[in-house]
């Protein structure tokens, strides 16, 4: 009984009297200093972080501004290109195919939706030129049969036929024909009646 209590007391006293080796504080300070310097060397300081973030933000701002400025003239050029169609189309198409649209800015602001216009390739320039060519009249439709007959009559130059085309001449002709017919009928009726009379 006494032995166990005595042994417990010895063990606890041994734990209480444990002594560190001499120079513990100096070693701890040196170790902490080394670890701190290693940690600071591994991590970039916050000033460098702020500088890097600032540079990245400036680059982004410049890039967005450049894209915005590239986009506005090209849309304006598309709007103003329609009136000047005929003469400079070939040259314009050539310019479009050679470089992105960065030409003069119009003082008139056109309310256009924000739209990004990319650089136009040569193939797209040809298509754009074809699109801007003025539209021609529609091709002639084939003649109808009546038109063909009329055309043939005109080209034959028959005076009677030509005269029939005139409504007045046609009416006069019809009146004369009617009169001749009536005259013939009257003459015929007289010839029929005369033989019935006694001639003897």
């Amino acid at each position, binding site marked *: 009984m006494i032995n166990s209590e005595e042994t417990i007391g010895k063990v*606890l006293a041994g734990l*209480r009297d444990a002594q560190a080796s001499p120079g513990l504080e100096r070693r701890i300070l040196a*170790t902490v200093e080394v670890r701190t310097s290693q940690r600071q060397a591994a991590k970039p300081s916050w000033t460098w972080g702020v500088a890097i973030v600032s540079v990245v933000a400036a680059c982004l701002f410049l890039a967005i501004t450049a894209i915005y400025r590239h986009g506005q003239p090209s849309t304006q050029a598309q709007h103003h290109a329609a009136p000047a169609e005929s003469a400079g189309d070939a040259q314009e198409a050539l310019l479009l195919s050679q470089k992105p649209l960065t030409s003069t800015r119009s003082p008139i602001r056109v309310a256009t939706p924000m739209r990004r216009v990319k650089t136009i390739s040569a193939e797209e320039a040809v298509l754009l030129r074809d699109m801007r060519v003025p539209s021609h009249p529609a091709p002639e439709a084939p003649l109808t049969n009546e038109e063909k007959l009329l055309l043939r009559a005109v080209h034959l130059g028959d005076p009677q036929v030509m005269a029939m085309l005139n409504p007045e001449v046609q009416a006069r002709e019809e009146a004369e024909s009617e009169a001749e017919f009536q005259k013939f009928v009257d003459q015929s009726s007289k010839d029929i009646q005369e033989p019935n009379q006694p001639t003897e």
Partner: protein
Amino acid sequence: MASVEGGSLVLFSTEIAQPEIDIAALVVTYSRLLFRVAHSVLRNQAEAEDVVQDVFVRVIESRRSIQAIRDMRVWLVRIAWNLALDRRRRIRPEQIDESFAESLATNTAPADERLAEAQRMSSVLREMDRLPRAERCVLLLSAIGELGTAEMAKVVGRSESAVRALLFRARTRLRERLEEQGGGR
């Protein structure tokens, strides 16, 4: 040594940029106590010194929130205690306990008596490890001899009366188990 400590003190003051946090002063004041706290768990000098170093590295890392700490002594003891428990899981405590028990045995006694005493101390250490966690914790903290009941209560997160009860039960349970082993033999 004074010059080295003085140089380190200036260095840390400029790095931390908070003059009230003096790492060198903390090391001088608390390193021995923290060593005993860690040694009570690990029972090895080199391992305990490594734990003390780790404690002050943690202090450097958490220097921004160190102003909110009310009781620096208890806070450091808790860090050392937790780091020591974590380290003990990675080592083989049986071999360390045997060598520590041999170092506690009386050197003047004959070899056979010294061996028997070392075995008894090894069994005490083994039974201490088998105690419930709260009882073991309170028993080891009281063994250090520098912490009062109130400080132990803060370290283990219990009330002072609970700490006293845990300490009483730990001593009683440990003695009973050792007597059972002695009766069995």
